[in-house]
C-alpha cells in the first residue's frame, strides 16, 4: 500500500486534542495575549476538521469554509489586539482579572 494516508479518525483526534488544549488555554491563562493565541489555536483545530471531512467526502466545501474561517480569524486578531492595546492604556495591565469594571 504505497500511499496509505492517515485516516479521518486520526485527523479528528488530533484536532480534538488541539481544541481541548486551546480551550484550557482560554480559561486558565491570565495574560490576555495568550488567551487570544489560544483562541487562534481552537480555530485551527476546527480548520483541521473541515479539511479532513472535505477529503473524506471528496467535496470542496470544507476547504472553502476553512478559508473563510482563516479570514474571520485575521479580523478577529486585529480587533482583539486593538482592544488589548486600549485596555493596557487604560489599566496598565493585560491580565483578564484586572478588567472587571463592569462586574458590579
Amino acid at each position: 500500500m504505497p500511499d496509505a494516508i492517515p485516516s479521518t479518525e486520526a485527523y479528528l483526534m488530533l484536532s480534538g486534542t488541539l481544541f481541548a488544549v486551546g480551550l484550557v488555554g482560554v480559561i486558565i491563562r491570565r495574560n490576555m495575549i495568550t488567551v487570544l493565541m489560544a483562541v487562534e489555536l481552537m480555530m485551527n483545530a476546527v480548520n483541521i476538521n473541515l479539511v479532513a471531512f472535505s477529503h473524506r467526502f471528496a467535496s470542496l466545501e470544507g476547504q472553502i469554509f476553512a478559508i473563510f474561517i482563516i479570514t474571520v480569524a485575521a479580523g478577529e486578531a486585529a480587533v482583539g489586539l486593538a482592544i488589548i492595546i486600549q485596555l493596557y492604556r487604560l489599566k496598565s495591565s493585560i491580565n483578564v482579572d484586572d478588567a472587571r469594571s463592569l462586574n458590579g
Partner: protein
Amino acid sequence: MSPALLVFALVGTVAVAASILVVAMRNPVHSALFLLLTFLCVAVLFVMKDAEFVGAVQVLVYAGGIMVLFLFVVMLINVRHLPDERVLSNFWKGGFAVGLAVFILFFTLVRPGVYHDPVSSDKALRSTYTYRHRKVKQPDGTVVRKLIRRGKVVGNSEAVGMALYTDYLVPFEVASLFLLVAMIGAIVIGKRELSAIEEENVPAYMLERVETEHAVKGGMGA
C-alpha cells in the same frame, strides 16, 4: 508503516507538543513562537489531505500576517514580567476540568473505525465544472433539454478559486466587507486620543512638528 503515516505521526506529535507549550509558556513571545510552529505543522497536515491552497493560505495569513501582528503587540505593550507573578487565573481548576471533559468527549465520539474511509479519489478536489444545456433525443422521439455537467481536472488552487468566484461569490464579497470593517474598527479602537492634560505635556518633537506645519501654512498664505 507507510511514509505518509510516519509523517503524520511526527508532525501531529510536534503540533500537539507545541500547542501545549503555547498555553504553558510564561513569556508571550515564547508562546507566539510555539504558535508559529503549530501553524506550520497544521499547514503540513492540510497539504497531506490534498488541500494545497488552504495550506498555502495558512502559511501566508497565519504564519505571515497574524503572527507578526501578535509579536508587534507583545513588543508594543512590553509588560514587565515579575518572576513571582501568577500565570493562572482563578478558574484554573474548572478550566482543566472542562478541557479534560472535552478531550474525553472527543475521544469517545471518534473511535477508530467510525468512518470507513472509502477508496478516496481526490479528483473532486482538483476539478472545475462547467454546466451547459444540451438537447437530448428521447427514445420516443421527443427532444428534451438537459443540463450537462462537465468536469475538468485542473489543480486544487484553480478549483478553489473557481468555486470562490462562482458558487461562493456572495460570501466572498461579504468576507471582503468584513475585512474592511475589521480594519476600520481596529484603527478606531487602537487610536490614541490625547486628553487636555496630555496635550500640554506632549514631547517637544511633536510640538516642533506642529510649529513647522503652522509656518508652512503661514508661508503659503503670505
